[in-house]
Every structure is written in C-alpha cells, then in structure tokens.
C-alpha cells in the first residue's frame, strides 16, 4: 500500500514532465484579445469565399454546362451529387461571425476595436450571403445545430441579416471591403438583398433593391494565386480541360419533367453553351428554347443560324479533353487561378428588374446589357408576348451570368421549362449516373450529430418535386 501511495503521489507531482509543446497549433488563446478582431473578419470571409468557390464550380454542373470524362475533381459536377458538402465551410463562416459579434457586443469596446461598426456590418453581410446560398440551394437547413428550417424561413433570415447590414452600414458609413471585394458595402448589401427578395417572390422589394445597384457594380468572391485560394472552376475545368461544354442536349432518355410530368423534347431547351450567337435582331433563343448558335459544335448543330454573331459573354476554347480521347470545348470564363467570381453583378440586377417589370421595359433593360457588351440589341421581341419575353430573359441570364453560379436560380424559378436531369439517366458518353436532385441536402453528419435531427429525417422537409431522388 505504501508503494501504491507513493506511485499516486509521484504522478501527482510530475505534471511538469507531461507538459508538451504544441507550437504548430493555436488554441483558444489566439482569439481572446481585441487585436484579433481582424483575424475573425478574415476568417469569416475566407471560409465564405472558399466555400463559394466550390459552390460556384459545382453549380456550373447544375447549370447543365458540360460533362466530365475523366472522373476527378470535377466528377461531382456531372454526377449531380445530392449532398452539399460545402455546408461546413459556410457554417464556419457563420461561426466566426457569431463569435465576433458576441465579443464586439459584450466584451470589446469601440476603443479597443476601432473598426467595430464596419466589422458588425461585414458580419451581417456575409451572414446574409451565406443564408441566401443555403436557402437557394438546400431544401432543408439547420443553423448552429438547431431544428430543420425550410428554405423560405432561411430566406427571411437572410433578408433580415442584410437589412441589419444596411442599418449597420448607416452607422459606420459606407465603406469598401478589403481585397477589392466590393467598392461599396451598401451596394453589395442591396444587391444581395435584391437576389434574396427576387427569389422569395418579393417583387417590389427586389425591384427597389436592384435599382439601388449602379451600373458596373460588382461584389466579388476573391481568389488568389496558389493552391489554397485558387479559382477551382479555372483549375479543375477551364485550365485542365477536364470539363467539356455541352452542345444542346439531344441524347436524354431519362425521366420526364418532374413538374409537368411531360417528356422532354428531343433537344432540351436552354441547354448547350458552345458557339452561342445572337442574330442581328437581337434574338438569342429560338421559340422552342434552343439557343441561337453560330456554328456546329463537336456533337451537333442544333440552333445554328446563318448570320448570327458570336456572343462574347460565353467564351470557350478548343482543348484536349481528358478522358475523352479527343478534343472539345472548355470554358474560358476565368483566365487565371486568381480570377474572382461575381457574387453581386449589376447585370443580374438589370435582369431582375426586367423580369419584374416585363413588356417593353424588359426589352429596354436587356438592351442595356447588350449595349454594355456591344452586342446586337433586341428588336425581334413582341413586348406583349409574355412567353417570348420570358424566354428572352432566361436565355439572357444564362449568357450574361455564364459560369457565375447565378443561372441555377433561374432554373429553380422556371422548373416547367428548364431541365433537371434526374436519376435513371446519365451523361452523354460515360453514362455516369446523374444521381438526381433539384436541391441539395445537408451532409449526413448533420443528421447524425444534430440532436434535433435523425438520419430518418433526411430530406423530410424538402418539397416533393425538389426532393433528391436518392439522397445518399
């Protein structure tokens, strides 16, 4: 017993022997001083931007842009995976925002953190942007391990966050965000809120916000050289030749339109991104939804019309396609790994206004874009033909917002005519299964680890017509 006692006593007295160095790891102590406020801001933006970068290139696939032959980093694009795995970095952005807000509101004073008001506004901006992404991509969402929320609820939260951002910008006065993210925080907030309200169907609110965003304004997700912050759309698709742009799709034999139940036409409307053209009368899309093209692509000549001029907004080049054993077209939207991705684009604001106002006003607004890009103005359209105006705007969004992850939301709002390849079908050549889904669901771990959820609840809050068919 004496020996036992001695052993216990020795262990108690030898704590110093067990002290270890962890120089490569930072602990909570790194975030306790007011001087770390800037680190919080950098961290919340960095996580948002990295997540959005993945989101954008994944969404490119959801916009039916093309096909991957050599399964690799782009594989998920063509597979239409149904789990939204950038949910985690987006949530981390929210976490850094929550932590910083708590410290700014309860611990750190304005004297200690001179940029306090701007930090608060920045937190709200990115919170709103993150919630908007969640609400428009996922069909059910949880925040901070809370209960399941429907997208409409999260859209309201995004709206509220951006409204708060505008209030905080009033307090701090407008400012530019770092690294040329945006020249005006206020314009960025209006643009983001316009997107949210447009998606919600708040036409008046969307119109009012969109009108606040001046021509030429963009807020961007910035990218930097190097593997850590490179533009993955450029790296994985454009640069490497791993993602061949589709010609108009004429090979689909899978499920019919999930909304109408009707079989798809032989050529799927609003598909194909190669050799897009515009006729001298401004027409970019045929009445059947097939885009106007200047020449045949590698696979077909659907939509080709003599006299069309190239649409310089949808650029691509011929490249050796990895895995195809042949050439094809790859996007040149992004010219470098540091190319930024537009988060708020004034062109989308114009198109939101066009969609809401309709008629001749819509034509005039579209022509604002055409003039800005020196493309033929629209003269063919009948302002009283609502279907024609609708098609014009859909196609204009497809082109003006090419590879910016914004056309996907047009698809969600026009599911009666825009294609969602679901399950039971595959890509043209490799027959990779398109696993099927219109919206994403959260990662499995959320359903397992969130005490408010269970695996059985996966996709339970999704609307039936948006629910992933096979939400693995």
């Amino acid at each position, binding site marked *: 017993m004496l*020996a*036992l006692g*001695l*052993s*216990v006593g*020795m*262990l108690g007295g*030898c704590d110093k*022997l*067990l*002290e*270890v*160095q*962890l120089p490569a*790891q*930072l602990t909570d102590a*790194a975030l306790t001083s007011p001087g770390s406020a800037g*680190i919080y801001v*950098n*961290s919340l*933006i*960095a*996580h948002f*931007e*990295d997540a959005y970068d993945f989101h954008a290139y994944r969404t490119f696939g959801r916009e039916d842009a093309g096909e991957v032959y*050599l399964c*690799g980093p782009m594989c998920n694009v063509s597979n239409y995976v149904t789990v939204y795995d950038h*949910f*985690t970095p987006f*949530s*981390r*952005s929210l*976490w*850094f925002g*929550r932590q910083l807000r708590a410290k700014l509101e309860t611990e750190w004073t304005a004297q200690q953190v001179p940029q306090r008001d701007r930090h608060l506004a920045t937190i709200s901006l990115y919170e709103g942007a993150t919630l908007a992404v969640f609400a428009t991509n996922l069909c059910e969402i*949880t*925040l*901070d*391990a809370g209960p399941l929320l429907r997208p409409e609820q999260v859209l309201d939260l995004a709206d509220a966050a951006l409204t708060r951002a505008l209030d905080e910008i009033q307090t701090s006065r407008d400012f530019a965000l*770092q690294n*040329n*993210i945006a020249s005006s925080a206020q314009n960025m907030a209006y643009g983001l809120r316009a997107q949210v309200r447009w998606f919600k169907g708040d036409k008046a609110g969307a119109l009012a916000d969109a009108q606040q965003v001046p021509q030429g304004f963009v807020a961007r997700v910035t990218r*930097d*050289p*190097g*593997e*850590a*912050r490179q533009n993955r759309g450029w790296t994985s698709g454009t640069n490497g030749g*791993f993602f061949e742009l589709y010609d108009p799709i004429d090979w689909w034999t899978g499920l019919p339109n999930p909304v109408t139940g009707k079989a798809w036409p032989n050529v799927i409307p609003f598909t194909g991104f190669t050799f897009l053209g515009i006729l001298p009368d401004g027409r970019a899309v045929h009445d059947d939804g097939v885009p106007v093209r200047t020449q045949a692509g590698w696979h077909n000549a659907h939509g080709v019309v003599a006299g069309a001029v190239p649409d310089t907004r949808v650029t691509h080049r011929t490249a050796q396609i*990895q895995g195809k*054993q042949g050439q094809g077209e790859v996007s040149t939207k992004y010219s470098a*790994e540091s190319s930024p991705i537009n988060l708020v684009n004034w062109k989308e604001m114009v198109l939101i206004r066009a969609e809401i106002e309709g008629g001749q006003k819509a034509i005039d607004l579209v022509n604002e874009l055409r003039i800005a890009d020196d493309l033929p103005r629209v003269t063919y359209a009948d302002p009283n033909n609502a279907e024609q105006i609708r098609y014009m705007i859909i196609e204009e969004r497809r082109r003006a917002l090419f590879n910016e992850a914004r056309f996907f939301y047009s698809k969600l709002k026009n599911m009666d005519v825009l294609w969602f390849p679901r399950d039971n079908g595959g890509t043209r050549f490799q027959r990779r299964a398109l696993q099927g889904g219109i919206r994403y669901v*959260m*990662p499995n*771990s959320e359903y*397992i*680890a*969130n005490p408010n959820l269970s*695996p059985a609840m996966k996709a339970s809050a999704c609307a039936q017509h948006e629910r992933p068919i*096979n939400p693995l």
Partner: protein
Amino acid sequence: MTTGQLLHRGFSIASLLAMATGLSAQTGIVAGRVMDQATGGPLAAAQVFIPGLNVGNLTTQDGRFLILSVPVGTHTLLVQRIGYRPATEEITVQADQTVQQNFTMSQQALGLDEIIVTGTPGGTQRRAIGNSVVSMDAARVTESAVIPNMNAMLMGRSAGVLSGSGGGAIGVGADISIRGYGSFSRERAQPLIYVDGVRVNNDPSVGPNMAGGRGGNVMNDFNAADIESIEIIKGPAAATLYGTEASAGVIQIITKKGAQGAPQFTASIAEGRNFMRGPHNRMGWMWACKDLPRVPCAEDQVVPYSYMHLMNAALRDGTFNPEWNYTQWPQKNVLQYGPSRSYNLNVRGGTERIRYFLSANHDYEEGGVYYNSDEATRLRGNIGVVLSDLFSVDVSTGFVSGQTSYEGQVGTRGGLFDQIVWGNGYCTPYVADQSNPCPRVLGMQQMIPTDIAKIYSIRDFDRFTGSATLNFNNSGWLASRSVVGIDRGWDKNEWVHPIETTQANVIQETRDGKVLYETPMNSELTFDWSATASFGLGRSWTTASSVGAQFYSRTREMLSTVGEGFVSPLSRTINQTPITRSSIDYEYVQNKSLGFYVQEQIGWNGRLFLTGAVRFDDNSAFGTEFDPVLYPKFSGTWVISEESFWNLDFFESLRLRSAWGKAGQQPNTFAGVNTFGAMAGPGGTSALTPSSTGNPDVGPEVSTELEIGFDVSVLDGRASGEFNWYKTRSRDNLLNINLPPSRGQASSIQSNVGVIDKWGWEATLSTTLYESRTLLFGIDLNGAYTMNEIKELGDFPGSSTIKLGWTYPPHGQFGTQEQTKVVRAEYDPKGPIVDPWGRRVQAYCDSGVFLGPEGTTRRGSQYGANMGGQIVPCQEAGGYEITPGIAFAPYNFSITPNLALAGGALRMHAKFDGSHGRTGNDRMSLWHDRYNTSYGSVTHNDPLYSAAYRINQFAQRAYFNGDFWKLREVGVRYELPTPVASLMGAQRVALGFSGRELAVIWWKDKGDLGLGPVSPRAMNHPATRALDPEFGRGQLGDGGHRTWPPMSSFHMRIDVTF
C-alpha cells in the same frame, strides 16, 4: 528436484557470470560442448550451470563451455537455451580434474523454464507467468528462409497475430493485429513495439501521402537477420505493466548479442526474383462488345480477350499506340521478374567481460515493374559489458538508411496494376472491326504504363535506434534494470509529377507539374527503471516484489510543401515552382506519458505462482478534467504436472494458467483542447480555421481481459503446445464523434463512447513425429479464432459503418455502402425492375438479422443488421444497411512440416497458411468486374446484375467466403560437410533456397468468385479471372483494390561462417 525447482533457487545469469571465476584447492573443472540435435551444429549462448552452486557459464560461438572452480562432489549440470528443451546430467567432480560433459539439445516450442522478457528486470521464467507469451526464435526463422521484411516474419507464425500482406508492391507494409480489433481505430489497434527495451515508432503507414494513404510500415526498417528473438505479449491481461497504449499488445524485438569466444564472421548473400505468378491466367480475360462502344451488348456479341497478352503485344510491336512501345519502356514485357538481393555480414565474439555483435546489411529489390524498388543499408552494433560483480551494461545501436520507390503513385488512381485490372473493355483495340473509340489507352483504364512510370513517389529514410541498459544484480535477491533509449527517424517524402511533354497529357498534375515534399521526423524517447527483490520464505515459498517507472515522449514533426507549375519539363523540386503556387504546412505533435507500477509475485515450490500488479498512468493527451488512470492485473499459474499426485506419465508437463488485467489506449494528442490552424485569408491576409474541438473529459479507453489457458508437453516432449481462450472488453472506446457541421466548429470531437468485445482462442502445437540420428520430421501447427463485436455506443447514435452488433473495422473498400442485400433474382413478368432490354426482374434480398445490446433484437439507427435474415422480395426488405461480417477471416491456420536429414545438414520446411470464414477482403477479381463496363457487357444479361444495379443494392459485392489454403513459404538449407567447408577456409558453409507465395492450393471461392448459389452466368465463363484469395488484403480490413496481389519470390542464399 525438477528443473523448475533447480532454476527457482535464485539463479541469475549475472550472478553466474560474476561467480564463475577463480579456483580453489578442492575444486575441479567442467568442460564440454552443446550441440543442436536437429542441425548438428554448435549452440552458442546456451546457459550451462550448476543450480545448487550458483556457478556456470555461457557457451561460446562453437558451443563450448568451461566452468572453473567447481567444488568436488556430485552435482547436477543443467543447460538451457531459448527454444530448446533443458537438459541435465549428473557429474562428479574430482579435485584438479576436468570433467568432460557434452550435451545435445532438442528444440522445444514452449519451455517452461525459458526466460521471458517482461516489464520486470531480468526477465521471468515462463512457468511463473500467468498469461500466454509468444517467444519466437527469429534467428532460426531467418536461417531457414529469406524473410523479406518484418511483416513476413510475423505473418502466420503465431496464433492470433495477423499481418496484412501489404499487397504485392515492393516497399509497402501492412497493419499488424494481435487478437483482432478492440478499438475504433486501426492505428490504435497496432501493438507497441520495443527493440532491446526501447519503445520505437510503430507507424504502419509512412511515405508520401498517395492514393489510398501512405505505404510503408516502419517496422520493416529493421533487418530481420539482426533479430535473435521476438516475444509477443498479446492482450491487456499481459500488457498491464506497459500501461496506456498497450491494450493492443506488445512486440518485444531482441536483437542478436555477442557471445564469448573468438570473433566469428558470418557472411550471407541472397539473390532472387520477385514476380507475379502466372499473370496471364490469374488475371484472366476481359470482355468487349463486338459492336463497340455499345454497352450493354447483346449476349452473343461479347468477346473475351487476354489483357496481359494484349499489353505485351502492344509493347513489343509498338503498333497500337506509338506513345508506348519498346523505345519508351525499358523491358520487353509489361511485368518483370524484379531482382532481389541481400548482403549480410556480421561478427560476434567477446570475452567474459565484453561481448559484441556487429553487422552490416544491404538489401535491394524491385517489384513487378522496374520503377518499384526498395533499397536499404543497415548497420548494427551491440555491445555488452560486465562492469563488476554487480553491474553490467548492454548497449544496442542500429542505423538504417534507405529509399523506397512506390508503385501506386498516380493520384487517386493507384498505379499500373490498377490501370490494368480496371481496363476499359470498350477501349480495347481487340475488336472485330478495329473501331476502337479510344486508341490511346489500349484498353487500360485511363493511363498507359509510361504515363505512370514518369511519376515517382519516394520515401527516403534514415533512422537510428539505440538503447543502453544498466543491469544490477546482487547475487540473486535484488535486481534492477535501467533503460534509456531513443528511436529517431528522418524521412523525406517526395511525390513528383513532371510536366508531360512527349505525349498527350492525361493526368491533371502533369499538365503544369506538381511536387509534394515532406520531411517527417519522429523521435521516441524512453526512460525505464524497474527493480525486483526476491526472497525465499521458508522452504516452499518465495516472493518477488517489483516496482517500476516509465517515461515516454514521442514527437512528430513534419514540414510539408506542395508546389504546382514547374518552370521546366526538367524541374523536379519544390524551388522550381512559383511561390504563388506553392503551399506549406507544418505539423508538430508531442505526447508524453508517465507511469509507475508495483507488482507482487508469490511462488510456492516453483510450481504455483500468483501475481498481482497495479499500474498508474498519466498522459499529456488526457483531458484537463481527467485524472490519472489505474490498471490492475492478477494472474495465477500452476505446473500441475510437477505435483506429487500427478501420475500421468503421458504428460511431460502440464501447466494451467489464468490472467486478468487491464491496459489502455490514449486519446489523440489534441483531443483535450480546441485548436486552430492557419489558412489563407483574402488578399494574402491571415485567417484561422478550426482544427480540433477539445473534450476536457476525454480519457483513455480501457480494455479488460480474461485469459485462461494451458501449456502442455507430452510423449517425452515430442509434442508440446498451448491453448488460450480469451475475452476482452474495451470500454470508453475513443471515437471521433461528428459535430453537426452547422455548428461551424471542427468536424468531430474525440469522446469516450461504447464498448467493443473481442474474444477467441489460440492453439499451437509443435511435434516431432520421427527422430533418429539421420532423420527428424515434425510438424508445427497453429490456429486461432478471432472475433469482435460492437456492444454499446452510449448516446452516440451510430454511423453508417459503426453500429451495434457489427464487427470492427468494417471492410473498407466501399466505405458506407455495405448494402449486401440482393441474394437472388430471376426474370419475372411481374417483377418491379426493368433491365436494359425491357425484361422484368424480381429480386430477393436478405432482410438481415438485427442485433441490439447483448443479443436483443432491436431496430433503429444505432443497431446494425447482419446477413442471415429471411429472404424476401427486395421491396419488402427495408432500407437499412447490412454488414457482411468481419474484415478478416476469423479462423486462421498455419501448418509447417519440418524435415531434417543427414544429421541436420539438410533441412526443409514448408509453411501452409489458411483461413476460414466470411471476410470483407477486397477481391478485385469479383467486384471490379461488376462495375467494369466490359463486364457489364456480360452481366447486363443477368437478372441478378440488373436487379442489383437498378435498385442500387449490389449483391454480395463485398462479401466473400474466406476459405483458402496456400503455400506461403518453403525453405531448404543444406550445410556442407565440415571438411568441405574447411577446404574453403570456413567453419560452416550453408546453401539455401526459399520461396514465398508459391501456390494457392485450395480456394473455395475460386470456382464462382464468391457468388455461390447466386452466381450469374458470367461467373461460370471460362474467362473468369482468379487473382489470389488474399488480394486486396493490403491492410487488414481495408479495401486495397488498387494494390497488387501478393508477390511471389524465389531466393538462393549462401551463408559462410569463418
């Protein structure tokens, strides 16, 4: 008086050494020689002594011994050596006379009196240890056959010890598992490894982080030829004194030591070849459609083709693809007979005071392709010094420097073998109209061999392992041992993708070039002190009280850089990438543990021993709220055959034993604290990201084991063996529990949850069936049953791979998709499934057997289901996952016949390994075909395939019958007659031949590749491939479907002793 009683009377080696000097007037000399009965050769380092007098000596290199100053009279002279049956002779010593007494020792699998290295100083006789300890004569193993690495040394040689094959590629290693898995972590299931008393790095996965993880096991850094013996302590009941981290067992490696006598040199040269046995037949054929690329194709349009023939023809002719022909591939065939060379030189000798063993070794070998190689140079110096009558010191040093060039170096795609077996049927030019749609790849998956060979993945390694052991012994009653040692490794990992310039680029990384450069450094520091005081309590009772303290510190430091965008096609290093496209990471992990133990052993008449011990451990990884942990043990052993009432002469000895004890496994280093890592912020600013979320309550997992067994020797020692039954319960198992991603913190938190039970039995039997002066024949047998099951998960609801009622680890190749449900299908006009031809199929699924806690039947996300339920239409089977069973076959056997002729001059052995039971081993031979489009050409005509594919419930795709027998190893050794050796100027000359992985003798699944009664028609196709029953068992429980099947080899060797 029995041998055990003789030994028990306070004998110690050190005391013998100390007292075997000096003469007196009434004394004489005892001299002689000790020989091995099987080999006829001399036995060095055998202990020869007179227990009653505490005098003795060790035999020299040539087996001779000399004991001076032996008092006149009649004495019992005893000789003992590990692995041999002790022998005694009565001698009568007369004053100033020399008594000549020779011994011939016969081998013995289990010697009750052999000294076992335990946690206490000086070792302990096996008879006093209440648990099973495997004692392997490694020197004899390496003498009998060329042993390429430590994995091969352990594989199948000890019941209950499993080693993965590591795959067939050279340089890769494998996990080692002792009594299965009791942790939710393969790393935690690795046994501790000690080399000459110092704890060493036991990482089973080192090298560049390539596809499927890192490749090597650092245990293979050691030279098998330098090892004298290996002792394996199997479970918590035995490993208590080793404390936290020891619950998966302990492997003690004891390197060769010096021996008294003139320097004796041994040179050894081995030359051999590594090769894939019968690649054409084993890899079989693939299928293509005549009207490519129409997949699926009609049944009568399917054509098989031999892939290996095609590849070799393409290489020879250079006609299929100008980018790959004999001008760019240095050999005439795709696969080669890889050279394998090994050179060893050692010298051992010494005086009474100083003994030494020095060795140098160089190994080089290549695998099935020329760029897969492993090269190492090793040096060892072991010196033992008797400082005084009380003190001696043993210094052990080893250094290795080498390089491994790995085969599977292509991104997420594995290597050449992977490309071959995943070949695209519709890309082969072997079609009737030559309308090959993708001629470049020749039917390979995505790359041709030259694409792969240009990439290289290398581990450069330097490692020093050294220890100094100070022994104190005051003539028997008090002994202490102090060990200080270090194991330090300096590795460099490179993974280089040069810019592709000569042919079309098909690998993303070779477009601009990419390099990974890492410098992992490991340092393990051990301080170990222990002491034992032994006393006699009257005529019958003895007591041994031991105390010990151990401090262990492990540091891992790694600088990693990744760069993209080489400035030139000639670029190979990180500095030739622009700084803007490179990234750097630095990892520094330190862990320390401190433990103390107290042990009391009470013995009665040298045949009954009771031992109790307790160990206290603290560890730097324990949470701040967690107290030091206590591990107790108790054991008892009774040599019942030495009791007076025992009258069964059939038994030479019978020992009963039982042990109960605890040991642990520590949490991860950062388990207790929140940590953040740096990340790049916008515009080059600094930002943070959560690395880990700390759990202040985290502590070690604790395993409790009960082991019951017996050792037996019968028929005058012609058959001896042991049997163990054990049951281990691991509580507070460490598991990384996912945090909800929506919290925005690290992805998981390490927590103590759940219970895993593992149980089984082990049996070994060593026999000498016939023995004469010219011929000796025996068979060694061992077998084991190993099983585990997850019993509790606490509040953790389970995951897709961890559920109650399941084994751990899951077989890994498909991760979470263990949907082995469809067992039968047939065409049925009323069936719900439509195949590609519009035919309707009805499928039947195994509805599974649900297992809740302790055998109850429950359903829910926490509870798993196993195969074996009712067979019902799949639409009625439910949407749950079913596990196919344990990741390795639960029954494992080994049979090793040994034959010695001509007085041991010619020796032969063959080692047969087998297994039985369901296993999740990854058989590419089966499931590759299921996914391959060429196979689809056939199977789309099969209702089972259609059913499984259409409802995404693949039939038995990861579920195999693990029954097989294979000829794992043969060894032949012929020792030239001494006169012939003398003519060559040598004392001994031996020629050897050995082979590994020579044949699959029987494989239950070979005929139908595991599909059994539900075999689709393609399984009966003559073109069915049949690789190897252990294919994919690169790591235990892992899906190594991109690894090579086990590589065969032949070696010739010559050993010269002079």
